[in-house]
């Protein structure tokens, strides 16, 4: 019961942090806008300059929402993978899902020269989103088929890794044969970006994200029994195959859509679940699922703030920020705690 209380306290703290950092994220940027003006433009009040409202409503607000979706979605995917494979190193990257999405985009950007003609359609954000989702889905289907043949989760993990290197290899070949211009475009996509979404793209993003997230309610209980291993879970009446497939579907939906719209963002899916477990000191998914989502969102918002510090003229790639600042923190935390758990 005591523990319940400490969970509540931790939740209150991270929710308040989320709100504060969210407002901070919206009010900071390369253009200096007073906080009061930011808030009035959010609530449709009178603003001194029309361009300010435009920046806040059509650029910063969608970017902040994207950051929340990306951070929480990737973190949840990581948590699910770690529990499913009972391996603290699992994550959307390890399963090859992110590489699958990258392959889709690579085929689109780099492969277009081979086909030619459809470039204007292909280079739109929608085209990229579609290609990435398709790529993620293809790799995941392959992993799923393998997963139903192989019982051992460790083997599935290795199969995922192999698919990851296969897709990376194909991307390398494509890069080798592509022009400098195409290469530049692909590399920029690979840096990751939260700020390129229009409201209409964001609404599609949100709907698919919500479909993925709402499926989570089906697996909260099975996830907890999976902590005892598959045989114990089975003895507790859990349908292992169904649970495993549901977890893989949710992960592919979330990772696919996120990679499609904001590039392959590393580190978050692996690290946030560990950070959250260090804060909450539990493996109970009823606590972990909401907590991981909130911490993931906070982390992404902070990374976004750093990537466009007010004094900087350029925006840094978000992918570099998440790794540069996140990895050392996790290494420090793990060394201090000395042991990690799923």
């Amino acid at each position, binding site marked *: 019961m005591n523990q319940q209380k400490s969970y509540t306290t931790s939740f209150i703290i991270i929710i308040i942090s989320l709100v504060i950092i969210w407002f901070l994220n919206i009010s900071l940027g390369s253009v200096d806008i007073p906080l009061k003006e930011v808030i009035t433009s959010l609530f449709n009040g009178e603003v001194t300059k029309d361009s300010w409202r435009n920046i806040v409503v059509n650029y910063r607000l969608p970017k902040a929402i994207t950051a929340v979706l990306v951070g929480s979605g990737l973190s949840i995917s990581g948590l699910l993978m770690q529990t499913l494979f009972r391996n603290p190193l699992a994550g959307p990257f390890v399963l090859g899902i992110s590489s699958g999405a990258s392959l889709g985009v690579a085929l689109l950007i780099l492969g277009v020269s081979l086909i030619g003609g459809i470039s204007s359609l292909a280079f739109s954000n929608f085209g990229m989103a579609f290609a990435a989702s398709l790529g993620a889905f293809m790799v995941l289907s392959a992993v799923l088929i393998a997963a139903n043949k192989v019982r051992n989760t460790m083997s599935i993990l290795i199969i995922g890794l192999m698919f990851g290197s296969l897709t990376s290899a194909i991307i390398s070949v494509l890069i080798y044969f592509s022009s400098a211009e195409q290469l530049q475009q692909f590399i920029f996509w690979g840096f990751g970006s939260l700020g390129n979404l229009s409201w209409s793209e964001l609404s599609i993003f949100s709907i698919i994200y919500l479909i993925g997230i709402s499926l989570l309610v089906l697996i909260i209980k099975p996830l907890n*029994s999976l902590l*005892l291993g598959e045989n114990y879970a089975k003895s*507790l*009446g859990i349908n292992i195959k169904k649970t495993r497939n549901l977890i893989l579907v949710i992960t592919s939906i979330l990772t696919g859509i996120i990679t499609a719209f904001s590039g392959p963002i590393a580190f978050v899916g692996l690290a946030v679940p560990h950070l959250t477990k260090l804060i909450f000191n539990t*493996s109970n998914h009823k606590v972990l699922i909401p907590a991981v989502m909130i911490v993931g969102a906070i982390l992404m918002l902070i990374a976004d703030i750093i990537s466009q510090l007010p004094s900087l003229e350029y925006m840094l790639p978000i992918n570099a920020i998440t790794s540069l600042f996140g990895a050392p923190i996790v290494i420090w935390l793990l060394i201090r705690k000395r042991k990690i*758990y*799923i």
Partner: protein
Amino acid sequence: MLFGYSSEKEKYIFNLSRINKHIILKTNDLEIGYKSKKSINSISKNINISLEKGKFVCLLGQNGIGKSTLLRTLTKVQPKLNGTIFFNNKSIEKVNQLDFSKQVSVVLTERLPESNLSVYELIALGRQPYTNWLGKLNEQDIKKINEAIELVKIGHIKHSKYYELSDGQLQKVLIARAIAQDTEIIILDEPTAHLDVLHKMETFKLLKSLTKKLQKTIIISSHEIHLALETSDDLWLMTNDNFKTGNKDILIENGELEQLFNSDLIAFNKDTKRFKLKS
């Protein structure tokens, strides 16, 4: 056969078993082993079991004879090759996984994956077959969990993380989890494998007491033959070409234990009920 040369004791046991006989587990010509696309690897066959409710059964046999395979087959972890298995007169295939989990709980030899679960949370997972989609514990669940903790006497460690426990404590926690699952049958695969002699005896005594206090039927595999002979009601003896079940005294009397190990090195003494090195 019983009447041929029956002693008074045997007659008594035989009559006792006719009254109130509730067969909880029955197998007919069960064949166990592993099947792949190319080949069938049969480990043991002609396994005929007829087990009464409330018995404490020890499954004995040499290393690698197939004890774990049998227990895994009985607990639906792996499919049987041939024959039938009935729990409470219902074929094991006809019972879905959830209903089965309310009838049979297990303690396995495999190590738990490293996680942050506390002892209480681990035992509470035993209530999963009964809880709602969120796994929320109601009053009945909490009562069952507390009863299990009380029975196994682990109240003082219930807030510890399970990875902090000693092997002996962990085994008690796993048994408590199986008790909390509230099933008629508990099947344990070598529950005393890593324990010292005190904890081995304690575990056997605890399991025996569960059959008395809660009328549980308990099946364990073990290499602790002497403890098994002391505490169990029935024995299942598994050898390469034979599977014998029955009351332990009858099995001893019939010299079945002698057959357990196919070796010139040791011999079984009926009077002391002990294996001894041949001199």
